[in-house]
């Protein structure tokens, strides 16, 4: 297996944390994994993105220009990154944030009401976890429990009080598809 993933959206949507959670989960599953964020001046203007590779072989470059798993969390990223998705790859769209349909017929679109799912449990800022739940369900990259364990283990102390809700949102995202 060799999953090459990209996560993109606004800063504040938890783009980097959903990416690093996937990478941590891969590590805990004993797989090779890398996480590579857009950094420095690339972050200016409010957008964020990162690439994650989860593989059963050593990872060469962590840079991914044509991901086989694309996750876009807002319309700006949808517009910008639609063409980046590798032919035959998945394209996950946070359909709470854009009504645009995927125009390409060589990718597999998956629409997730990620922000709505998160808001139902508590907070729109947890949309990343809803989306990650859906990604795990549809692609089967990693088992549900592995990601949940990683989430508990890597949760920063300052948001520990939000852990239970995040777990719930993740589960709801998983169940939504």
């Amino acid at each position: 297996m060799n999953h090459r993933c990209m996560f993109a959206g606004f800063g504040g949507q938890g783009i980097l944390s959903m990416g690093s959670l996937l990478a941590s989960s891969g590590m805990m599953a004993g797989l090779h994994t890398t996480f590579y964020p857009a950094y420095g001046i690339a972050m200016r203007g409010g957008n964020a993105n990162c690439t994650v590779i989860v593989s059963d072989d050593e990872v060469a470059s962590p840079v991914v220009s044509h991901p086989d798993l694309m996750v876009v969390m807002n319309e700006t990223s949808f517009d910008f990154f639609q063409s980046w998705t590798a032919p035959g790859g998945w394209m996950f769209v946070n359909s709470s944030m854009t009504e645009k349909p995927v125009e390409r017929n060589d990718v597999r679109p998956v629409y997730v009401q990620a922000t709505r799912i998160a808001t139902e449990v508590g907070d729109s800022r947890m949309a990343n976890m809803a989306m990650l739940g859906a990604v795990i369900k549809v692609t089967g990259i990693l088992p549900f429990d592995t990601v949940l364990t990683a989430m508990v283990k890597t949760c920063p102390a300052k948001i520990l009080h939000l852990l239970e809700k995040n777990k719930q949102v993740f589960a709801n995202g998983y169940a939504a598809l």
Partner: protein
Amino acid sequence: MSERVLLRGNDAIGEAAIRAGCDCYFGYPITPQNELTAYMARHMPELGRIFIQAESEIAAINMVYGASAAGARAMTSSSGPGISLKQEGISFLVGAELPALIVNICRGGPGLGNIAPSQADYFQACKGGGHGDYRMVVYAPATVQEAADLTVKAFDVADRYRNPVLLLGDAILGQMMEPVEIRPYAPNRPEKPWAVGGKRQGRAPNLINSLSLEEGVVEEWNWKFKAKFDAMRREEGMVEKVNTEDADLILVAYGTTSRICRAVMKRARAQGLKVGLVRPVTVWPFPYAVLRETARKTREFLVVEMSLGQMIEDVKLSVLDHAAIHFHGRPGGGIPTEGDILEIIEHVLVRRRTGTVTTRGSVIDWTIS
């Protein structure tokens, strides 16, 4: 206690430095190494150690000079343009025989360039970016794990030779998160009777400097330095060889580029092409002998760098006329792709061609020396 954690390269270098007993860190902001400075800002004071955000890279390297003169394990980090500013200080460290660790998380140049990964500081790192006749051990880690391990080793090696050591990474290595095991470490710290400062209690005054106007003294120093550099050449070289025994073509790459070449090697082998890899872990000392040895059997070498070709000069010095040396490089922040490298290998090994090919609308330029 050690466990695998997902760490960014910059953070892993910081944590490894702390575990290696780094007493003082002096830095100045520049992308893509800022996380390392921030890591030290957070963690050094907690441990009662010294962190200063200096007014410039020049000040930072000279704070290193002072702290090291006083016996500290001291380090600084920067990227291309900032490392250029530190060159004077690095030369002075060598001249005054002061150990230190300098980290270069290299970015695209020349000039301000960009903040993308690059290996264009190879000449500066290995051939003496500063003035005077000097050498220093230069580590070129390829993984976050190796960056951490070599950071620890670098402090010991710097102390052993009383000479600065450079850790040469690139933006990918600095920014990437990978699983890494930060191991416990008992610093191997030699006594430093030559250091200045503190209570002398009867010892003769010490002197840290790099100047003498007396005839012959500086030449004498240089002969002494040469003996140290020769010892480094004998003792400190590190190189990884993979599948070189039966190889028809050997890829030569270091750092991030070697990861890409390793993947290419696997793909080529899967296609029945006998490709090997030589990866210098120290780019100084350079593994001349290892490459010379492999050139006795292998006739084709492909050097891949994120530059217009710098390490290739050392490969040429190793292989001389015993084999053909091809080169593929991407400058200014470009990253060589597996597909392009593989295509060049096919042209060389299968179609027996040389030069430039145009595929998929893009030019894959490679040169043969």
